[in-house]
């Protein structure tokens, strides 16, 4: 995982900007396409063979609606109407579609048409009730008796009139199935059972699909909620262990501004490391990471802020180790002789060339006046760099701060 970018929003039918069901308004932004193009696509697919309608309906059913309050036209119209009116409308729509087919010369025959019309009415009733209950269902009602029928999710409860409508819808679908079988002569005992089984499966599908969809959707939401809760608990635990502890400590040490600053800075670094976990380089595996860790250690030990800027990186091999040790020494030196001044460390790796600059704005010193036996800078910085084929220069002047330049070219 290298990309800590925000996850894309889950695919939802959008209420805002919706013309019909919000399918295009939801799909468009997700796919990076103007919803208008999608709409035109659906219309074209509809005119060229009717597949567009089927696709659109499938999307409507399968893509969950945005939970934001609905205010698009169709939903308003449907929401105001009684269930039986909606079902009647669907029946008439189905009938007119079939008549349209007849006008085009495609008449499917009475044996198909009437069961289809009946089943559409029953289906509409059931689907409508399942949508209703999802709106009506509220925590206050959660204590009602467990749902009865097989295949229903346990959280689902119907009000009395809803149950009536559902029963009526089921009757209509079963009736449609029976009528279909009867008209096709499949009820005669010695006929082929394949057709009968098929019809029963289709009828059951129509009856149970709404509950099944709601069940799976409910499970997904539940899982998402559980993950959210877990994450929240983790964040809370972390904040408690680190930030709150530090804040308490800072209140106790309020009299010592230097220590407070050091505490705040350490906490800041910890928090950043935690926030950036996963996107950061592995600790200790590279020069830049080791440099940051070493400087953090010095900051903690001495309570002096040191800023690190690293450009490029390389593996922590023997030469990089030497460079790191020399840098450490230079920073320690700066901390010792310029404790109240800003210290910055800049590291740059380009190909085989690695450079580190350690700069402080302290008092500076006269390089020639440093006694020859003072080991600090001379031995541990200059000597170390030379032994590993690098070089070190110290630029300093009284009153102008100090800069240690370390170069390693292999």
């Amino acid at each position, binding site marked *: 995982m*290298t*990309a*800590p*970018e925000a996850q894309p929003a889950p695919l939802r039918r959008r209420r805002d900007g919706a013309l019909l069901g919000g399918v295009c308004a939801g799909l468009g932004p997700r796919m990076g396409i103007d919803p208008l193009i999608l709409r035109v696509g659906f219309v074209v697919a509809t005119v060229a063979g009717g597949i567009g309608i089927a696709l659109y309906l499938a999307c409507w059913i399968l893509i969950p609606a945005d939970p934001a309050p609905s205010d698009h036209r169709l939903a308003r119209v449907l929401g105001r109407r009684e269930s039986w009116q909606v079902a009647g409308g669907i029946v008439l729509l189905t009938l007119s579609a079939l008549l349209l087919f007849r006008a085009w010369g495609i008449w499917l025959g009475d044996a198909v048409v009437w069961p289809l019309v009946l089943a559409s009415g029953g289906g509409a009733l059931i689907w409508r009730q399942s949508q209703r209950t999802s709106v009506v269902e509220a925590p206050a009602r959660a204590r009602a008796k467990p749902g009865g029928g097989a295949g229903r999710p346990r959280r689902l409860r119907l009000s009395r009139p809803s149950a009536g409508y559902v029963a009526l819808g089921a009757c209509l679908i079963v009736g449609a199935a029976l009528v279909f079988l009867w008209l096709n002569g499949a009820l005669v005992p010695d006929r082929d059972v394949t057709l009968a089984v098929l019809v029963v499966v289709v009828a059951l599908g129509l009856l149970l699909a709404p509950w099944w969809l709601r069940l799976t959707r409910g499970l997904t939401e539940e899982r998402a909620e559980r993950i959210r809760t877990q994450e929240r608990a983790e964040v809370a635990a972390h904040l408690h262990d680190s930030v709150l502890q530090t804040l308490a400590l800072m209140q106790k040490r309020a009299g010592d501004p230097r220590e407070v600053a050091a505490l705040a800075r350490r906490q800041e670094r910890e928090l*950043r490391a935690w926030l*950036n976990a996963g*996107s950061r*380089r592995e600790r200790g595996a*590279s020069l830049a990471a080791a440099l940051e860790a070493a400087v953090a250690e010095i900051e903690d030990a001495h309570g002096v802020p040191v*800023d690190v*800027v*690293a*450009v*490029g*990186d390389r593996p922590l091999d023997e030469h990089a180790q030497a460079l790191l040790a020399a840098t450490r020494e230079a920073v320690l030196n700066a901390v010792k002789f310029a404790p109240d001044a*800003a210290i*910055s460390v*800049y590291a*740059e790796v*380009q190909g085989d060339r690695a450079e580190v*600059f350690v*700069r402080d*704005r302290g008092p500076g010193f006269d390089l020639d006046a440093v006694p020859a036996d003072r080991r600090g800078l001379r031995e541990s910085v200059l000597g170390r760099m030379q032994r590993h084929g690098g070089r070190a220069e110290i630029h300093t002047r009284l009153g102008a701060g100090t*800069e240690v330049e370390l170069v390693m070219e292999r």
Partner: protein
Amino acid sequence: MKEPRVVIVDDHALFRAGVRAELDGLVDVVGDAGSVGDAIARVLELEPDVVLLDVQMPDGGGAEVIRGVAPQRPAIRFLALSVSDAPDDVISIIRAGARGYVTKTISGPELADAVRRVAGGDAVFSPRLAGFVLDAFAGGPAPAAAPADPELDQLTAREREVLRHIARGYLYKEIALRLGISAKTVEAHVSAVLRKLQLSNRHELSRWAVQRGWVE
């Protein structure tokens, strides 16, 4: 010269109050705002010289404020002020149009100085931002994607040198002295880098997070 007029935008009231107190007497703080919508309205109404802008706020953050204001008031300049040191945050606000980026730990006088420089039309780079830019422009021109403008996709040697000094913690004055050029020239180099940063479509600039993945 008259002190620049400043509006502070940050969703933390405590922080706004702190910055106001620190800038008191150094520049002319004319107002503040705590949300993106509020900020756009206040800035359009007050017409300050510089807007101090928090990067991370609800409803789109500082970049959204720039997008809301800049088309109508192109003369208003933005200086990003943030606790975040994530490169994508920094780069994205600069590419949205901010003239500089400083971290919230900056001292009052330094901040006032940065505000004055931004008000004067210069760019303000923190050492860390300079490091990010060097990182992004490292390794010559972008190889695969055909660069629309090679001039925009590379830093000149001089610009690189100036940025490296900024990353090392030098002030513009000191850089000018060290490189033997005038402070104005240093500022011109930094402004040129800012322009490249905003206009170049180098791969690294848009896909920063991936670039920082550093496999090898």
